[in-house]
């Protein structure tokens, strides 16, 4: 006998500085429901389990196919995308929804992930190409290189790795796993490699690679199974070589 209702417990907060509170909702069960679908049902009838009128739960979502990362939240305490959190796989108890804790709350389940995007700017996670004129064909990658790069290019800056990283918190300057892995990606690209030293400089400074504590929780939390720890190993090699080069070129 499948469950008749879906019970949800949602941590709500009206403003970034406001106090949080819990609200409970009860929805009729339907097949193939995920957490986003539940939140969409709530906004069509914003009434709590106790029958009190409330506002629709606020959350962020865009692609609904686990490629944008914006619907990331804590589902039963675990950071993950709410679009792929299937109700039937979440146990019999109430589904508990909370915002990520490592980023400031905007409202309810939406957080401000700007610190992660700022870190991507710090490490120059792009390939600079000047002008709109034709530079001709770029260098080619072997299929092996493509496959390695592809794994890192799947990062959607969802923040799951940042959430579980014990070193990434508000009393540390550590930039976190996601931006570091992008240095690995862009430094392996034949055109991106031209700016490899700038990216290494960014992660050799404060809050960079050396602040990683090797807890290795990031690789477990990553929904795209990005080989984050392998990236840090390779970056360790790159920064060591860069440091030695600097030492002997003085």
């Amino acid at each position, binding site marked *: 006998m499948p469950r008749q209702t879906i019970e949800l417990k949602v941590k709500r907060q*009206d*403003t970034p500085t406001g106090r949080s509170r819990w609200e409970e909702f009860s929805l009729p069960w339907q097949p193939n429901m995920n957490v986003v679908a539940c939140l969409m049902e709530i*906004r069509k*009838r*914003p009434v709590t389990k106790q029958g009190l009128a409330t506002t*629709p739960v606020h959350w962020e979502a865009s692609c609904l196919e686990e*490629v944008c990362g914006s619907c990331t939240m804590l589902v039963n305490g675990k950071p993950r995308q709410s679009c792929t959190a299937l109700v039937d796989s979440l146990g019999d108890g109430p589904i508990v929804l909370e915002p990520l804790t490592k980023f400031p709350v905007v*409202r309810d389940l939406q957080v401000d992930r700007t610190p992660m995007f700022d870190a991507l700017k710090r490490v120059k996670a792009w390939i600079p190409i000047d002008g709109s004129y034709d530079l001709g064909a770029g260098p080619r990658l072997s299929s092996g290189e493509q496959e390695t790069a592809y794994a890192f290019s799947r990062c959607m800056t969802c923040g799951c790795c940042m959430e579980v990283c014990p070193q990434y918190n508000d009393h540390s300057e550590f930039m976190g796993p996601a931006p570091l892995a992008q240095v690995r990606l862009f430094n392996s690209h034949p055109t991106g490699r031209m700016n490899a030293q700038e990216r290494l400089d960014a992660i050799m400074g404060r809050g960079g690679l050396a602040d990683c504590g090797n807890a290795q929780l990031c690789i477990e939390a990553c929904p795209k199974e990005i080989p984050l720890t392998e990236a840090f190993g390779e970056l360790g090699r790159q920064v060591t070589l860069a440091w030695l080069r600097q030492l002997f070129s003085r």
Partner: protein
Amino acid sequence: MPRDVASREIHTVCVDKGLGVGGGMVVYLDLTHIPRATLKKKLEGILEIYEKFTGEDPCEQPMKIYPAVHYSMGGLWVDYERSSDGFLDHGSARNQRTSIDGLYAVGECDYQYHGANRLGANSLLSCVYAGQVAGPAVLTYLHSSAHVDDPRPSVLEAAEKKWSARFAELAKRDGGENPYVLADELGKVMLENVTIVRHNNKLRETDAKLQELAERWSRASVLDHGTWANAPLSFLNQLWNMLHLARVVTLGALARDESRGAHYKPEFPKRDDANWMKTTVASHAAAGPCLRYEPVDVTLCAPVERKYD
């Protein structure tokens, strides 16, 4: 197999013949004869998403699928300027410019490549092409006399006043209709009648339904009277635009009595180049969308019959 043809076949099997899996709107897409290693190499991302959303392994069990809306075929009208040899004049400020002076559209939001069908990787084409063309066009515009450095303060003030008043009015809405329920109904009627297969009587019914939804929209509640991160408030405004756009799509389809690309009318199954090789352009009017037509430039590439045999 192009996606519009495949979609119509699936529609025929499920709707006309009632032969969908379990009698529902589902068919199987079977990949189980392909070795797991090959699938992982070629289609890892998409199959992983299927597994995550359904809880079933597509390497072991046939996938259950049905066509879904993925893309809007159509978009903002943009201009272009032809050079004397029939190609594009790359320096022209007209390229990619919308009907609003100084407003340029770049990428999938413009209409240029996808009037009749959505081809794979069109999104890449549209961002690469329009990006390359719009950049120089904007520069030319900035250096031209048409460009005004600073719009008059009165223009900005009037715009701010208009939108502040609009949102202040929406923020007070307290009627009995829920905007998200209306959006669900909008999606349902458009999906049923204005996607894979189109019948003129159904299109007329749809237009009537859209006008009913617009009337109910005026009695919808904003649901949230807060002033911070109020998503229902923006949604209420957006829904009004969606209702207008839905009428553009529906009435454009109703007027076009032929089948072209993904636009399929069983009553008119053939492509009719003599009468309909033209682009539908809609403009806003208080009484509803106004349609006009523009010729399609085929000087560089003449159309041929579409065949897959």
